[in-house]
């Protein structure tokens, strides 16, 4: 067989679609053929629905009897094939590969001379392959049945609605306001959130900082706060400090990590 001679050559065979042994599998163009040739080995991953499928395909390619699989050769071919598979699917294939390698080793073990007790390690694989082959047959039959069924239509068919772009929004301010009115009036107890101006006093805080700096070379920032500062006092001071620092009217340093800020009149570098 042609493939067998290819196998002995250095170039490995090309795996193609299992259901199209020859014609359909040929690359579309000479260029593609050249690329495929240079890659040496191409597996069309989506063409196989699992490691058993790939294995069956390899056996079919080689016209091997399932009951008497040359494990060593098939294991090598299988490993070669999955080398080119994407990692996302490779786990299932790797599991089969490890099984095959294990079988290959088992086949190499010396058998008992009497030959009576030797149990073919391939038996389980053969059983699985036959079982899977049967499932494939049934699946094929079911695909045909579904195809035949699809040729008969029952009532109640609704064609998919054509996808229309949303119509442009046409409304004026009055429409919008009446819409708001309608929505608000339908709410039993409308909750109106009253917005109040924030009582931040950045200006006052800035003045306080500047007057402190007029007296002293440096101070800790909390000294600029009153005896029992509210959260707005703190926020006002922080914003004031940032503003002053931006303007260059004060300098802030932090002696250590998490230490309170120290406010200086001049930058620490020029002070040194």
């Amino acid at each position: 067989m042609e493939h067998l001679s290819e196998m002995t050559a250095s170039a490995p065979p090309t795996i193609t679609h299992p259901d199209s042994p020859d014609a359909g599998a040929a690359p579309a163009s000479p260029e593609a053929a050249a690329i495929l040739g240079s890659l040496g080995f191409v597996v069309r991953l989506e063409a196989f629905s699992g490691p058993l499928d790939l294995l069956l395909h390899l056996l079919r390619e080689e016209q091997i009897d399932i009951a008497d699989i040359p494990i060593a050769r098939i294991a090598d071919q299988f490993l070669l094939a999955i080398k080119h598979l994407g990692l996302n699917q490779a786990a299932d294939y790797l599991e089969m590969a490890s099984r095959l390698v294990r079988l290959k080793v088992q086949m190499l073990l010396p058998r008992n001379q009497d030959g009576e007790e030797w149990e073919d390690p391939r038996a389980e694989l053969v059983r699985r392959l036959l079982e899977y082959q049967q499932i494939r047959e049934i699946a094929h039959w079911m695909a045909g049945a579904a195809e035949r069924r699809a040729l008969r239509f029952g009532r109640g068919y609704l064609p998919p609605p054509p996808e229309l772009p949303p119509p442009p929004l046409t409304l004026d301010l009055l429409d919008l306001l009446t819409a708001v009115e309608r929505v608000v009036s339908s709410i039993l107890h409308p909750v109106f959130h009253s917005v109040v101006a924030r009582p931040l006093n950045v200006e006052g805080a800035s003045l306080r900082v500047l007057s402190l700096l007029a007296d002293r070379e440096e101070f800790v920032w909390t000294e600029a706060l009153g005896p029992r500062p509210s959260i707005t006092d703190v926020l006002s001071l922080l914003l004031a400090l940032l503003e002053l620092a931006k303007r260059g009217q004060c300098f802030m340093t932090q002696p250590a990590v998490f230490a309170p800020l120290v406010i200086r009149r001049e930058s620490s570098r020029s002070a040194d």
Partner: protein
Amino acid sequence: MNPLAQLIEAALFAAARPVTAEELVTLDPDASLDEVRAALEQLREHYDFDGHGVEVAELGGGYQILSRPAFAAAIERAQLGGRQPRLTAAMLETLAVIAYRQPVGRAEIEEIRGVSASGVLRSLQERGLIEVTGRSEGLGRPLLYGTTPLFLELLGLPDLSNLPRTEELTIALQPYKVETAGPDDESAAYVAADA
């Protein structure tokens, strides 16, 4: 056609899904199940021999009026009828395992197909072709799956016994067989075909 056959024709025409013979019996308080079946046969012959574009199909456990396959291409071209997206190979294989081994757990499906099955099981469930039928007594009490009437409808089969028989094949699948033992003896429905 007799009045019962006409009534059944009207009912099948009105329904957008297969209607069981039991449902058809409720149409007429005086009709028996046998009479309904006879009327269905009359309706079928009427469609088959009087030159109609539709036929009475038995599928998914019921009866439905369907257009004849010969007109499929024209109907589709005119976009008056459409088909569902085709099943993938993985879906078909998984359905095959479930159809013949139900109730069956995920582990067995994965063992037979040699690939992970969680994704395909989910899509089959979403399409309503399989359903969870129970839990296994085994470790972790895994979910067991079975096919739905919609699965039969999709394949155009009256019931599971219309799936191809696998007895003649050498491998021990457990084909569905028409129950011959008493209704309590569940194991009789699933007989190993180990030859």
